[in-house]
């Protein structure tokens, strides 16, 4: 059954882990597209490359357009200039033509001869910079040839300088500029171009140009400009025939185009950058070059054409310009594009890197998360394992212990018995250790839950003290507890865990202390100021007060006189605190009212010992599990070192903290501060009643004198007596006590008349010489016929001889062995004073099973279990403790039996039952109860004997201890659970919880 639960639990753990993983795997966008990241990068790079190429192209095109514009503007400029210059020259030639016609033909005789012409043209040559020279050829008809030749004295020659053959007309040069004087007498009509020119010129009457050809003189390319010269004035609109008829001669000039253009371009800026070609494109299929080379280099891709108009409508010219060099690669564009690309590339890469990084970080994060979940699971599993294993070890250990107990029952030789007892002791130690491990595992697994129930702190401390009284007495240690009056009687908290803490600390102290004392103190830590004050005071007058030399040894004002580690807890501060508290208590109830108003009380608990102390090196790892001061410690003193770590865990679980002060060879003081809830007043008074039952009230008002030389010890004694309601006086020694008594009795007689005198053994021994005074004490009282005060000796340990002596000295009544406990003192006093004959008090000292018996005796209990064997066993176990048991075999049967009103005091309910399980049955029972309660409250409330409502304590029986589904039990209305099969202590704990705290009124 247990295993199944565990398995299902483990299963649920894994499921939860998976769920966690599932929910936490929320992928981001980047994570989801991680496979696409390189492709994204590639795409980005490609897009950017394309974009930068586009930018480059754009910029380059821009450049080209600008280049073209520059070229065209330059080309147009050149063409215009050429054309202008040309025009100017043509005009001059025209002027010359008019000059010749005016002065050669209209004047008779002619005013021009060769000489004049040459002179004139030479002097006006600057006006015609483009013309290498001008000449005038006269029109000579064949009929006039002879006359002409005669007149000039030379024959007409052809261009090849041969006598001219016979033609219709001739045009021999008669005047020429000196630069071209070599053409004089040459017949212009004999050259092909010239002839054509001449014919065209006289027909149009305008300047005409030849196609370019190599000039005679210079072999430069050139054209010849020809103007007709007319004999007579022409009519306003002459026909072609009239022009031909009127033609007298021709004025021609040779344009040396090549040098001309050369000069012209030389004057312009940017000449080197461009190549200029000038063409004659009259014949559109065959362009004749006038300037420049036919097949030149240069940028063939880019050219600009400009039209040239040289004034001859027949001929067409054009200028073509190119750049000398190919367009230079545009570095700006290239750089810009490249930089753009690089930047984009980098940006892309950065983004890619970031994305990769994000992916990586997220991966790591997921991995870490997974690891964390696994680690947590492992931790839980570890704790579970520990808990389970501890539990599993406990089972066979119980077997071993049981068998050992059986073995010890048999007849054994003393050696065998010794061995068996040793084995049993070891086994018990192992069980204790396992329980501790289990506790730790529970704490770590977060399974340990603290109770909040009202409990009496003082009685718990007394219980712990009684646990260790045997040991401390054997060692001769003083063991004492003191609880400040301000600490409320009942506090809310977890008594079991508080007891565990105190037991651990005191147990440790007892283990490590060989002499001196162990002192447990509880104060309210609400206002730490008095302590500080006290501390300051201690510092101020520490020197004078601290050590009083008594009989050889330095004595400290501690419980036993040995030095304690924590000076703060020395007598001075203790007294201060004590006085302050007394003052506050006496002064007014205001303080306590204010205190009670607050919900919680913070307690400071210190456990002081005068043991071997903790070595300085080991001090920092005292609270680490399984760490002891050193390995020799465990050899000498035993133990595992887990106790303190559990203590620390528990204190922290209770919302407090623990610290310690330790001086090697002097002692240690463990100090922890924790907070408890205050009890509500109503419940306080309620529980007070029950609490008062453990301490008999019969001593209320009795007067006692405590004789003790050590103030701390005296205060402790006084504390215990005060708890019994006695009035206590402290006397330093016997003499003072005696005199006090005497004075009182003599003066007023009724002020303080001690009923009891408690004398500390040390004080008695030191004041032994004064036994007479003791006698006097007796005598005085005898004399006054008062009731004899009871003399009681307080001792930690006492030898028989001393006991005899004490008896002789007058302590006939009794000796109280320390450690003091209120209940024990009460018992002794009862014995001495003979008040309570009935030994009711002994109840608390009985062992567990009989306590359980007393708890369960006479109770009617219902056991619900489907399994008959379980039923029988549970019934048997409960019957053993005196309970009346009834059984039900199913939840339904139980419901039937529990129909209200019923007389059951408690119900033990199995959880796993067929048909109706324990939870369901409990839920129904609770429903039934609440219905009835409502009816009761709704109806008349009068006279019903039962004031409290129906609430049957229901305890779950479960086979599963560690994760005992206790939450679920409580949730469905159960009051607790016991493990199955029954274990006595377990049963006791569960039962005691509600039979004690909820006393049933009718039993």
């Amino acid at each position: 059954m247990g295993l199944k639960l565990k398995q299902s639990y483990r299963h649920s753990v894994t499921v939860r882990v998976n769920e966690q993983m599932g929910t936490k795997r929320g992928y981001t966008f980047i994570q989801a597209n991680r496979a696409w990241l390189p492709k994204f990068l590639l795409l980005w790079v490609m897009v950017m490359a394309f974009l930068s190429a586009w930018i480059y192209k754009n910029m380059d095109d821009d450049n080209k357009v600008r280049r073209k514009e520059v070229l065209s503007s330059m080309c147009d400029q050149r063409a215009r200039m050429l054309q202008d210059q040309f025009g100017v020259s043509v005009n001059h030639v025209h002027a010359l033509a008019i000059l010749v016609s005016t002065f050669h033909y209209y004047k008779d005789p002619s005013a021009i001869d060769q000489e004049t012409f040459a002179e004139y043209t030479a002097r006006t040559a600057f006006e015609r910079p483009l013309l290498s020279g001008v000449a005038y050829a006269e029109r000579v008809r064949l009929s006039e040839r002879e006359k002409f030749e005669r007149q000039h004295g030379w024959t007409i020659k052809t261009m090849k300088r041969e006598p001219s053959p016979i033609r219709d007309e001739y045009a021999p040069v008669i005047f020429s500029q000196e630069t071209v004087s070599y053409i004089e007498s040459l017949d212009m009509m004999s050259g092909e171009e010239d002839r054509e020119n001449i014919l065209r010129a006289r027909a149009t009457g305008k300047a005409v140009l030849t196609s370019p050809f190599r000039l005679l003189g210079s072999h430069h390319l050139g054209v010849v400009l020809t103007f007709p010269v007319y004999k007579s004035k022409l009519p306003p609109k002459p026909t072609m025939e009239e022009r031909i008829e009127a033609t007298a001669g021709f004025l021609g000039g040779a344009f040396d185009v090549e040098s001309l253009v050369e000069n012209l371009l030389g004057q312009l800026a940017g000449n080197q950058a461009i190549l200029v070609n000038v063409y004659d494109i009259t014949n559109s299929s065959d362009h004749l070059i006038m300037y420049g080379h036919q097949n030149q280099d240069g940028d063939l891709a880019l050219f600009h054409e400009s039209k040239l108009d040289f004034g001859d409508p027949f001929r067409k010219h054009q200028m073509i310009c190119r750049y000398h060099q190919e367009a230079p690669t545009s570095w700006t564009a290239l750089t810009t594009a490249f930089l753009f690309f690089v930047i984009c590339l980098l940006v892309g890469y950065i983004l890619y890197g970031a994305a990769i990084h994000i992916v990586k970080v997220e991966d790591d994060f997921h991995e870490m998360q997974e690891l964390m979940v696994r680690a947590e699971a492992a931790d839980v599993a570890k704790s579970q394992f520990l808990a389970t294993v501890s539990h599993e070890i406990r089972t066979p250990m119980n077997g071993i212990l049981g068998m050992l107990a059986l073995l010890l029952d048999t007849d054994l030789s003393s050696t065998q018995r010794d061995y068996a007892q040793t084995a049993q002791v070891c086994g018990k130690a192992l069980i204790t250790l396992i329980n501790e491990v289990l506790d730790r595992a529970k704490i770590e697994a977060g399974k340990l839950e603290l109770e909040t129930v009202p409990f009496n702190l003082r009685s718990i401390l007394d219980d712990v003290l009684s646990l260790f009284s045997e040991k401390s007495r054997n060692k001769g240690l003083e063991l004492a507890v003191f609880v400040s009056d301000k600490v409320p009687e009942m506090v809310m908290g977890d008594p079991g865990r508080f007891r565990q803490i105190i037991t651990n600390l005191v147990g440790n102290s007892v283990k490590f202390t060989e002499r001196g004392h162990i002192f447990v103190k509880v104060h309210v830590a609400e206002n730490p100021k008095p302590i500080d004050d006290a501390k300051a005071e201690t510092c101020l007058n520490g020197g004078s007060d601290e050590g009083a030399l008594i009989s050889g040894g330095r004595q400290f004002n501690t419980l036993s006189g040995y030095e304690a580690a924590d000076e703060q807890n020395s007598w001075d501060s203790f007294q201060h605190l004590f006085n302050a508290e007394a003052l506050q208590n006496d002064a007014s109830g205001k303080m306590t009212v204010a205190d009670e108003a607050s919900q919680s009380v913070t307690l400071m608990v210190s456990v002081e010992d005068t043991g071997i102390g903790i070595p300085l090196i080991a001090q920092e790892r005292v609270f680490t599990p399984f760490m002891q001061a050193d390995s020799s410690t465990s050899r000498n003193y035993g133990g595992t070192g887990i106790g303190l770590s559990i203590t620390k865990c528990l204190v922290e679980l209770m919302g407090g903290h623990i610290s310690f002060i330790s001086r090697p060879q002097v002692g240690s003081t463990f100090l922890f501060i924790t907070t408890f809830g205050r009890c509500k007043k109503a419940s306080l008074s309620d529980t007070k009643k029950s609490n008062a039952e453990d301490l008999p009230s019969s001593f209320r008002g009795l007067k006692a004198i405590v004789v003790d030389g050590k103030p701390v010890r005296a205060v402790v004694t006084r504390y215990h007596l005060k708890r019994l309601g006695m009035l206590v006086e402290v006397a330093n020694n016997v003499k003072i006590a005696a005199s006090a008594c005497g004075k009182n009795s003599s003066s007023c007689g009724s002020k303080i008349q001690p009923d009891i005198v408690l004398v500390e053994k040390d004080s008695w021994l030191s004041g032994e010489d004064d036994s007479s005074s003791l006698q006097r004490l007796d005598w005085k009282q005898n004399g006054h016929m008062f009731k004899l005060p009871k003399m009681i000796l307080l001792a930690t340990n006492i030898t028989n001889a001393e006991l005899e002596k004490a008896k002789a000295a007058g302590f006939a009544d009794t000796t109280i062995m320390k450690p003091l406990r209120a209940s024990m003192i009460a018992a002794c006093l009862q014995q001495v004073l003979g008040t309570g004959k009935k030994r009711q008090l002994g109840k608390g000292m009985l062992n567990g099973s009989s306590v359980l018996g007393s708890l369960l005796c006479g109770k009617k209990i219902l056991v619900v279990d489907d399994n008959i064997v379980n039923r029988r066993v549970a019934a048997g176990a409960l019957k053993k403790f005196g309970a009346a048991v009834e059984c039900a075999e199913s939840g339904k049967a139980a419901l039937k039996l529990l129909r209200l009103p019923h007389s059951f005091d408690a119900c033990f309910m199995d959880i796993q039952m067929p048909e109706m399980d324990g939870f369901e049955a409990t839920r129904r029972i609770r429903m039934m109860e609440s219905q009835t309660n409502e009816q009761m409250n709704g109806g008349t409330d009068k006279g019903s004997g039962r004031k409290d409502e129906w609430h049957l304590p229901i305890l779950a029986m479960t086979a599963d201890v560690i994760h005992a589904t206790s939450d679920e039990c409580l949730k469905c209305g159960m009051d607790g659970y016991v493990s199955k099969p029954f274990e006595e202590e377990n049963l006791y704990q569960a039962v005691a919880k509600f039979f004690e705290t909820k006393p049933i009124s009718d039993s």
Partner: protein
Amino acid sequence: MMGLVADRLRADANRLLAFLFNQGILDEQFLQLQQLRDESSPNFVSEVVNIHFHESEKLLRNLRSLLMDREFSGYNKMGIHLNQFMGSSSSIGAKRIRNACFAFRAASEQNSRAGCLRALELLEHDYCFLKNKLHELFQIQQQRVLAAGARYPMQN
């Protein structure tokens, strides 16, 4: 003479118990059960154990018939029986039987019929073994009581 017999019987009983503990057949719960015996019910242990045997036999029969069923599907029912079995055997401290039940239940949770059959055989074997041993023990105890009863008047 009688005292010797009684001693022998006690030694026998202890030996047998020790054996059962050593073999892991019983656990400390059995001791607790023995402690529950008192004057009012001197035969408490044997009574409870006999009830257990009675129940167990019924359960074993049921389990076998369930397993032998041709179209076998009663794993749930088997789980309930096994829980019962486990509960009662842990109550009397029959540890080995409880463990056998664990194994059986594990097999039934895996719906493995062969495993179930094996586990059932083991369980039956353990059960018979325990039954024999406990009968032996009770017999010894019975004799002890008889011996003690015989001795009692002798002391007077």
